[in-house]
């Protein structure tokens, strides 16, 4: 019987398309992961599944219609969108809102931050298999949604801002109700934060996973809790001090670890900071008018350019307006934090295990494709040589 002298090993490289529709992805994006065995060796981010042409739409509508369009760019963080747009127009028109309006704006934006951070932590719990924790966090999040509704009139979409002020005010009854809700939520936030930090299973699943170095985070333009979770002290609220952020004290939360756990803990700590800010606002709300008389606002705005930044729950959100006069803007550019955080994040998955790609890959039936590559092992001396399948097929490899 003739003994084999060589062995051909064909490593299987998996091409795993995650999205654009996937239970673990809450927005339509394609993350195409290439894995060599368990190790991620390449990632392509595919975009364009949800492009609605909002910037073109904004150019074709008046500033007043635009204000309501921008709120609808994102359901979760709609007040920061309208705040950023409204302030950009206010800078052009040199309109200044009243102190009470500025405080109320911050109140609604910080409530939004709390529920957004709770949402993403709940989703993280779900992805790592803690479905009950997901439901508990979502239950408590409803309290904040209720608080947002009390302030703005809308549980999800607030439509709270207006050029020069806000569209609703709160009275003593609402104020007391809000304080009551915040007191109820505070121990829950502290409990969840403690859970994420101390629970051995959560800790094991998130610690040292997806570590991002400071240099990589900054050079890839990643913003928000990702930036601060990698040790960079950068928060638009502290840098630009817009609205009432110059009067309301808060700490910029920074952690140096740079891993997934650090980013989640930054969010829990920020939620607690936001809670304190909300309490401060309700206790120190300036008197005076807050609601702007929309009938007296100008229909056209002076020409000019403005660029505003706001610290959205996911990081720095920016609006740029170029206006040549009249009632419609010439150009509006919206740059959301996820634009940088997601599209530029391809590098961060490399060299991790498939299971560490933070989505439920196991629920996929991956498409397997062999690449044109093979390893020829000489069984006599154990030497391995990489060749292409094409070379083998053409008889160019001596086995």
């Amino acid at each position, binding site marked *: 019987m003739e003994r084999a002298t060589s062995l051909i090993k064909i490593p299987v490289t998996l091409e795993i398309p995650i999205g654009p529709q996937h239970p673990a992805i809450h927005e339509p994006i394609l993350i195409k992961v290439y894995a060599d065995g368990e190790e991620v060796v390449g990632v392509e981010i595919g975009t364009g599944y949800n492009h609605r042409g909002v910037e073109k739409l904004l150019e074709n509508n008046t500033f007043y219609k635009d204000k309501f369009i921008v709120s609808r760019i994102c359901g979760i963080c709609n007040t920061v969108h309208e705040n950023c747009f409204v302030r950009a127009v206010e800078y052009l028109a040199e309109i200044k809102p009243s102190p009470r309006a500025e405080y109320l704006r911050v109140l609604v934006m910080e409530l939004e931050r709390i529920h957004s951070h709770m949402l993403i932590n709940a989703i993280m719990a779900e992805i790592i298999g803690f479905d009950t924790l997901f439901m508990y966090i979502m239950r408590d999040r409803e309290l904040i949604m209720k608080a947002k509704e009390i302030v703005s009139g809308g549980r999800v979409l607030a439509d709270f801002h207006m050029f020069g002020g806000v569209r609703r005010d709160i009275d003593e009854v609402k104020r007391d109700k809000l304080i009551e809700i915040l007191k109820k939520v505070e121990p829950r936030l502290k409990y969840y934060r403690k859970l994420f930090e101390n629970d051995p299973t959560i800790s094991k699943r998130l610690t040292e996973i997806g570590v991002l170095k400071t240099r990589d985070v900054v050079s*890839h333009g990643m913003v928000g809790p990702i930036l601060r979770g990698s040790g960079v002290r*950068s928060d638009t609220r502290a840098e630009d001090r817009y609205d009432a952020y110059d009067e309301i004290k808060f700490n910029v939360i920074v952690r140096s670890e740079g891993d997934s756990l650090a980013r989640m803990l930054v969010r829990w700590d920020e939620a607690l900071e936001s809670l304190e800010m909300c309490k401060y606002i309700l206790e120190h709300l300036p008197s005076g008018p807050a609601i702007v008389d929309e009938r007296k606002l100008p229909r056209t705005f002076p020409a000019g350019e403005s660029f*505003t930044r706001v610290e959205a729950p996911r990081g720095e959100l*920016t609006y740029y307006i170029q206006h040549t006069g009249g009632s419609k803007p010439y150009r509006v550019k919206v740059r959301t934090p996820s634009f940088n955080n997601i599209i*530029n994040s391809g590098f961060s998955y490399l060299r991790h295990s498939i299971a560490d790609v933070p989505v439920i890959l196991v629920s996929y039936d991956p498409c397997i494709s062999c690449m044109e590559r093979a390893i020829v092992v000489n069984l006599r001396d154990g030497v391995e040589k990489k060749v292409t399948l094409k070379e083998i097929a053409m008889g160019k490899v001596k086995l």
Partner: protein
Amino acid sequence: MSSIKEIEDIFSSYIIGKDTVKPNRPRFHIDVSNLKEAITLLKQRFGEEALYISNIIGVDKITEGIIEVNYFIHIIPLANTIVIKVVVPRDKPQVPSLIDMIPGAYSGECETYDLLGVDFVGNKYLKRSFFVPTDVVSRDIFPLRKDAKV
């Protein structure tokens, strides 16, 4: 202590104009051929961990036959965003890519190419349909150009 004045000094030999984007973003107009050198100087001064490209914003000035490309660069130690503006002809909008110097330029360059047709020379990842739907791409339209009807 770093300041905007210091950035002016760094760019002194390149500045062909300057203004301010409201509320307080200093903008420096430079020639497109000097873009990479200006960014290099900025990186040398502040270091790799101190600045990121916040935005790349193209504006189609159809009546002037140009496209403005504004680079909004956030400088963390300054706690402010500065703007570098270059202008390219509308019929041949070519700008050197910064992706080899600052990888975070990827998203902005790909988007600006897809929506406005600005060619970032050296960026091999540029492709249509990055955002724009294929039916619009098939008609060879850059939707944010002022003469585009979509």
